[in-house]
């Protein structure tokens, strides 16, 4: 078994007096997650709830696909691209998969350099991650355009079962939204790193707590989750 890593969880909270003090005292408890900062624990719990959302989508996709009496369009052919005069099955999706995995790799390294307080490398790697994420969203927009031109709609398509369109737009649309939000936050975190906000412990927006390099890891958790969801979408929607 690997040894758990020790992490600074910040200073203890001030004890307010009077009415706010009652609320603060009654709502406090022994902290459950001993060696992670609060932001990281909260991000994990958010990701857990997001897991349930995406799972609901994927399970309802399974349900409509199993119950339809029409033939399901073959994703291998629907998502084929003609490159150099040759039709290659699913090639766009494969490239998107590699792009997202690469962005996960650069993100993981950004977290590492962040904890080493290597500002320049963290900034560069965060920016590369954001660029790869933006490329992914761009390719997804291209894919949507192509499918819409082919006549795929949420209520029907010329290739077969009508549920194909609704499942596709719902699942990839929700995932694409996650990637887009991720790109925006990656750029925000990258700017904070470059400005030295984290070195000087300047508080961020929406919080009075001191900034530190743990937000890079929290950002990383979200980004890896987006990649994780894509692993499931790639396997269950595109390859099945």
């Amino acid at each position, binding site marked *: 078994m690997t040894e758990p890593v020790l992490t600074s969880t910040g200073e203890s909270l001030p004890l307010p007096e009077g009415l706010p003090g009652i609320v603060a005292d009654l709502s406090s408890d022994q902290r459950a997650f001993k060696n992670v900062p609060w932001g990281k624990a909260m991000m994990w719990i958010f990701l857990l709830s997001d897991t349930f959302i995406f799972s609901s989508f994927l399970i309802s996709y399974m349900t409509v696909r199993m*119950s339809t009496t029409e033939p399901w369009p073959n994703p291998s052919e629907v998502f084929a691209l003609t490159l150099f005069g040759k039709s290659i099955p699913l090639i766009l999706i494969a490239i998107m998969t590699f792009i997202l995995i690469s962005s996960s790799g650069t993100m993981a390294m950004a977290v590492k350099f962040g904890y080493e307080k290597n500002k320049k490398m963290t900034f560069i790697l965060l920016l590369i991650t954001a660029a790869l994420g933006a490329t992914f969203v761009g390719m997804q927009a291209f894919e949507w355009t192509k499918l819409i031109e082919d006549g795929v709609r949420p209520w029907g398509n010329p290739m077969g079962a009508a549920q194909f369109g609704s499942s596709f737009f719902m699942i990839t649309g929700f995932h694409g939204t996650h990637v887009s939000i991720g790109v925006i936050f990656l750029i925000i975190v990258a700017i904070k790193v470059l400005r030295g906000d984290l070195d000087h412990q300047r508080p961020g927006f929406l919080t009075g707590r001191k900034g530190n390099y743990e937000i890079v890891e929290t950002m990383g958790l979200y980004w890896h989750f987006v990649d994780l969801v894509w692993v499931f979408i790639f396997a269950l929607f595109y390859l099945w």
Partner: protein
Amino acid sequence: MAHAERQQQGAEGQQHAHVEGQQHPIGIYLKIWGLLFVLSAASYLVDYFHFQGYLRWFLIIVFMLLKAGLIVAVFMHMLWERLALVYVIVVPPLLLMVLLGIGALEADYTFFTRGVYFFKGLL
């Protein structure tokens, strides 16, 4: 002498693992990155070579779970977290197996009734 040196290096390495935050050598990320590339390529090849039936489904699921496991364990640092956090995050999604089962049952039933009521072949 060389042995003592190596022991010292080992001790330093141990200390290194105990510094603040999730700090791990860059090599592990690069290796996992490479492994994820290989697994993605493998699952793409399943489609490219037109594997069908149970073999296809088995390979897709295996590659999917391996990739998911690697991302969660290494990239998301679950390997180095305390068990309390790991269990709180990893155990609840197992409940989804129930939803999966319900969905499959319901889908089978819907398919059956559609077959009975929408079948126009004999009219």
